[in-house]
C-alpha cells in the first residue's frame, strides 16, 4: 500500500501533468484562434500562385489610321513569392540577370501581395529566355511570364509627341502619381504615353492556381481577363511628320556643313490646322529612339542622350522658350490698329534709325524710307515698328500679347508645357530691378528683349490670324478608340473663341503676311508654290551664340488649312534657317491636297529654296 508521501507525490504528478496539458491547449488557442488568420494566409501563400496577365497598352494611330505605336510579344522574369529564399538561388538569379542581390532583396521586400510574383526584369532577350528555361529546375521559383512589350516601329518619328514608357519607379508609386500600379507596372514616362497613361494602360488581369510542394499545378481558379488599354487616334499626319523630320535633319546638316550656321543642331517645327487646333506634325530636334527606354536604356545611351547640350529629351515645341523676334510684329501691329494709333496707309519714315533712340535701327543698317504697314511687315522693317511701339506703349503691347495667347500655356494635351514670358515693366523690375526705358519698348515691339514664346504659342497666334480671329486650343488626340476599333469618345475640346481684336485688324495682318512671301518680301521664294502662302520671318537675338531663326506661315491664304511654325536654334536669319522647313511642309501639304504634282522634291536640302537672299530683318 502507498504511504501518504507517495500519494501526495502522485497527486503532484497529476497536477504537473494538468499544467503541461494547459500549456498545450493554450498553445493551440494561440496558433489556431489568435493567429489563425495569419497562418491561413501563410498556407494560402504556400499553395496559391497568382500570375498577372498584363493588359496590352492601347495602340496609337496617326490621323489616317497608320500605327505609330504598338506592342510586341516579350517575356518578363518573375520570382514566385515565398516567405524565404535560398541565398544560392538569389545569387544565381543575380548573376543571370545582372541585378545586384541587394536590389533583388529590395524588390522582394517591397512587394506586398502574398501570391503575386515579384517582377525581376522586364522584356528579357530571347537568349536570356533560353538560358532561364534551361536552368529552371535548379530554381523553380523563377518563372517567365509573357508580356506585351511597347514598340515604336518608326523609332524617332514623332517621339516628342508620343513619348515613351518605362517601369514605374518607387518614387512614383510612393507619390501616387499613377493609379492602380504595382511594382513593375509599365507606365508612360513622357509625351502622350504619359498624359494619356490612364487611358492607354488598361487593367491587368490575373489568374490563380493551386500548386503542390513540387510546384505542380493541382487546380486552376477562375481568372480575371485583362482589359486592354484604349487606342488613340491622333491628329498627326504621318506623311507630313516624316517629311518634315527628314527635311529638318537634312536642312540642319546643310546649315552646319555650308558654314551658314555651324552650330545649328536644335530645331522645333510644329504644323497644325488653324480651323480647330489639330496638330499635324510636331518635330523637335535632336530626337532619340524611344525603344531604347523600353528595353532598359544602357548607361552609354543614357549618357549620350542626357549630356547632349541640345537636350534631345526636351520637346522644344512646347517647352522651348525663344524670343519671338519679328514674328511678334503681328502683336505690335494689332495693338496699333486696335487703338487707332496708325492708319493702314499712313506713311512712317525709316531713316535707318528711330529719332528718339538713335542707336536703334534696322538689321544690317538698311534705310527703307517712307513705309506703310503692309510693306513694313513684308520687309520686316524695325524702325516702323519702333514707332508703333512708341505710339501704343509697353502696357498695350503686353495686353495684346496676352490676347494672342503669349505668357500662358496653350493647354495642349501634353505635359511639360512652358508659359513663356510677356515683356512688361513689371517683368523688368522683377528680373533686373530697373526702370523701364523707351528702348525696352522698342525692343519689345519687334519681339526682342524680354519676350519669350514657345513654338506652340506662336502657332496659336498664327492660327488666330489665319482663322480670322478665332482661337483654338491645340491638341494631338483626335479620338479615343475601343480595342475593337470603335469610337469610345472624342476628348472634349474648348470651343473656339473670337479674340478681342477686330476683323479689320486681322485682315491687315493677313495682307502684311501675304506680302512677305511675294516679290519684295523677306520670304519671296514662297511665291514659287502653286498656292499663295502667308508668312513672317523672325530672327531672335541670342546672347549665347548665333541668332535663332524663326519662320511662321499659314496657307492657302484665302482658306487657310495649315499653320507651320519653325525655329532653328543658332540658325541665323529666319528666312534661310527656318523658312525652308516651313516651305517643305507646305510642299507636302499641297501635294497631299492635290494642288501640286507628286514626286520627289528636287535635289538636296536646298531643293526647296534654301539659299534665298534674305531681305531686311
Amino acid at each position, binding site marked *: *500500500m*502507498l504511504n501518504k*508521501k*507517495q*500519494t501526495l*507525490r*502522485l*497527486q503532484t*504528478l*497529476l497536477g504537473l*501533468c*494538468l499544467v*503541461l*496539458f494547459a*500549456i*498545450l*491547449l493554450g*498553445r*493551440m*488557442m494561440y*496558433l*489556431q*484562434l489568435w*493567429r*489563425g*488568420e*495569419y*497562418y*491561413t494566409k*501563410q*498556407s*494560402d501563400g*504556400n*499553395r496559391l500562385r497568382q500570375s498577372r496577365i498584363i493588359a496590352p497598352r492601347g495602340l496609337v494611330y496617326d490621323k489616317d489610321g497608320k500605327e505609330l505605336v504598338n506592342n510586341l510579344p516579350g517575356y518578363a522574369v518573375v520570382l514566385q513569392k515565398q*516567405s*524565404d529564399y*535560398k541565398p544560392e538561388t538569389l545569387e544565381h538569379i543575380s548573376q543571370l540577370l545582372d541585378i545586384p542581390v541587394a536590389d533583388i532583396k529590395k524588390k522582394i521586400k517591397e512587394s506586398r501581395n502574398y501570391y503575386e510574383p515579384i517582377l525581376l526584369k522586364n522584356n528579357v532577350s530571347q537568349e536570356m529566355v533560353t538560358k532561364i528555361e534551361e536552368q529552371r529546375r535548379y530554381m523553380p521559383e523563377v518563372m517567365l511570364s509573357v508580356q506585351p512589350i511597347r514598340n515604336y516601329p518608326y523609332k524617332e518619328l514623332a517621339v516628342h509627341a508620343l513619348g515613351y514608357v518605362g517601369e514605374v519607379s518607387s518614387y512614383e508609386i510612393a507619390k501616387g502619381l499613377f493609379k492602380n500600379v504595382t511594382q513593375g507596372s509599365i507606365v508612360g514616362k513622357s509625351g502622350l504615353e504619359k498624359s494619356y497613361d490612364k487611358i492607354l494602360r488598361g487593367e491587368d488581369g490575373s489568374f490563380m492556381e*493551386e*500548386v*503542390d*510542394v*513540387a510546384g505542380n499545378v*493541382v487546380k486552376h481558379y477562375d481568372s480575371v481577363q485583362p482589359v486592354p488599354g484604349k487606342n488613340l487616334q491622333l491628329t498627326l499626319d504621318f506623311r507630313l511628320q516624316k517629311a518634315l523630320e527628314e527635311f529638318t535633319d537634312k536642312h540642319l546638316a546643310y546649315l552646319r556643313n555650308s558654314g551658314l550656321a555651324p552650330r545649328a543642331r536644335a530645331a522645333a517645327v510644329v504644323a497644325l490646322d488653324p480651323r480647330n487646333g489639330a496638330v499635324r506634325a510636331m518635330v523637335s530636334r535632336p530626337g532619340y529612339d524611344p525603344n531604347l527606354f523600353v528595353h532598359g536604356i544602357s548607361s552609354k545611351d543614357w549618357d549620350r542622350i542626357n549630356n547632349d547640350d541640345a537636350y534631345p529629351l526636351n520637346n522644344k515645341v512646347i517647352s522651348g522658350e525663344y524670343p519671338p523676334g519679328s514674328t511678334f510684329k503681328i502683336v505690335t501691329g494689332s495693338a496699333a490698329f486696335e487703338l487707332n494709333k496708325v492708319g493702314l496707309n499712313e506713311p512712317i519714315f525709316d531713316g535707318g534709325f528711330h529719332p528718339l533712340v538713335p542707336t536703334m535701327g534696322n538689321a544690317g543698317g538698311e534705310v527703307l524710307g517712307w513705309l506703310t504697314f503692309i510693306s513694313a511687315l513684308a520687309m520686316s522693317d524695325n524702325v516702323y515698328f519702333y514707332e508703333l511701339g512708341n505710339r501704343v506703349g509697353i502696357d498695350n503691347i503686353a495686353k495684346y500679347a496676352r490676347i494672342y495667347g503669349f505668357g500662358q500655356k496653350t493647354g495642349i494635351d501634353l505635359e511639360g508645357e512652358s508659359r513663356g514670358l510677356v515683356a512688361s515693366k513689371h517683368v523688368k523690375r522683377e528680373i533686373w530691378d530697373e526702370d523701364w526705358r523707351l528702348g525696352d519698348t522698342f525692343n519689345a515691339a519687334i519681339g526682342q528683349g524680354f519676350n519669350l514664346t514657345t513654338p506652340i504659342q506662336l502657332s496659336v497666334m498664327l492660327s488666330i490670324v489665319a482663322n480670322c480671329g478665332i482661337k483654338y486650343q491645340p491638341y494631338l488626340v483626335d479620338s479615343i478608340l475601343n480595342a475593337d476599333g470603335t469610337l469610345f469618345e472624342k476628348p472634349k475640346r474648348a470651343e473656339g473663341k473670337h479674340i478681342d481684336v477686330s476683323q479689320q485688324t486681322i485682315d491687315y495682318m493677313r495682307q502684311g503676311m501675304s506680302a512677305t512671301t511675294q516679290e519684295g518680301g523677306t520670304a519671296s521664294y514662297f511665291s514659287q508654290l502653286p498656292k499663295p502662302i502667308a508668312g513672317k520671318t523672325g530672327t531672335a537675338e541670342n546672347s549665347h551664340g548665333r541668332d535663332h531663326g524663326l519662320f511662321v506661315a499659314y496657307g492657302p491664304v484665302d482658306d487657310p488649312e495649315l499653320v507651320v511654325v519653325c525655329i532653328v536654334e543658332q540658325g541665323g536669319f529666319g528666312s534661310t534657317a527656318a523658312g525652308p522647313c516651313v516651305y517643305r511642309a507646305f510642299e507636302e501639304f499641297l501635294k497631299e491636297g492635290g494642288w501640286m504634282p507628286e514626286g520627289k522634291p528636287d535635289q538636296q536640302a536646298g531643293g526647296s529654296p534654301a539659299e534665298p537672299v534674305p531681305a531686311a530683318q
Partner: protein
Amino acid sequence: MEIKRILKNLDWWLISAVLILMGCGLGLIDSATHSFAVSTGKAWHVQRQSMFMVFGIIMVTISLAFDYRMLKNYATRLYIFNIILLLAVMFVGHSQLGAQRWIQVGSLSFQPSEFSKVFLIICLATFMDKRIEWLEEFKDYLPVFGYIFVPWLLVMRQPDLGTSLRFIAILFGMIFVRGFKYNWFLRLGVAFVALLPAFWMVLKDYQKNRIRVFLNPELDPFGSGYHVIQSKIAIGSGGLLGKGWLAGTQSQLNFLPENHTDFIFAVAGEEFGFVGAALIIMLYLIIIWRGIAIALDADDNFGTLLAVGVTSMFMFHVMVNIGMTAGIMPVTGVPLPFLSYGVSSLTTNLMLVAILLNVKVRKQNLQF
C-alpha cells in the same frame, strides 16, 4: 467468475480513450497518406496500421489472463535481452535520418528502441521494488541510476536523443513518486547545466542543429526548421473548425513532411481545427489521469511503479510530440502514441496499456 471479475475491473475510461484515439489515428493516417494511396491504388499505411491494431488488441486481451507480478521473474532476462537488442541495432541496424534505429527481421523492420522502453519500465520497476525499503538517502538511488545507465548509453550511441530522453522521463517519473527529494532534483538540474557544454560535445551535428533551429527556426527555413514552420502553418491555418477531412492543403499538397508519422498532430490541427486538437489533447489527458489513478490504486509498489513508468512515458510522448508540432519543443523524432503511423510504436504502446489494465484488474484486495 474470473472473467466477470476482470470485466468488472477493466478501466473503461482508459480503454475508450485509447480506442477513440486509435480510430482518430486511422482517419488521420488515411488523410496524411491519401495522395500516396491514390497514386498506388492501395491504402497501404492504413491497412498495415489497422492490422497491427487488431493484433495489439488481441495481445492486450490475452495479457489480461496473466498477472503482472510474474513480470518480476523475467526482469533480469529482459534487461539482458534489451542490451543485446540495442547492441544489435548498432551492428546490424540500418539508419534513417542520420541515426541507426531499425532492424530488419524477415520482411518486418522494427525499431528496438520502441520495445526497449517497455523492457526498461518493467526492469526498472522490478529493480526499484526490490530496494523500495532502502531508498532513503541520495546514495541509495545510485544503483538505480547505474542500472539504467547501460541501456541509456547504448541508446545515446545510436544516436537516438528522443529515446534516451524517454528513459530519463521514465526514471524521473518513478523516483519522483518514490520520494526523491525536490532538493536532489534541483542539484541534478544544476549538475546537468554544469555538464551542458560536455553534453553538447557528445551530440551529433544534426542533433546540435535541431536544437539550434528549435531556438530559431528561421535559421534554416529549408532544412530542419522547415518542418516546424510548415507544421505551425498547418495547425494555425486550421482555425477553429479546421479545413475538413482530406482537405488540409498543407498535408494534402505535401508541404508538411512526415505528416503520417511524427507530424500527424499537425494534420489533426489543420483538418479539424482547434476543436479536433482540443479533443485529442483531452483524450490524452484521460489516459494520464487514469494512469495516475491506477498507480494510486495499485495494491503493491511494483504495480504503482509500473503504472507511473507507463504514465510518465505517455506524458513525455504527448508533451514532446505535440510541443514539437506546435513549435514549443525541439524536433526529436518522438511519435505520438496511438495516432502516429508506425507499427513498432503502436505495438509497444498497446503493451503499455496492457500493463496499466493488468495492474488495475489484478488487484488482490477487491471489494466484492
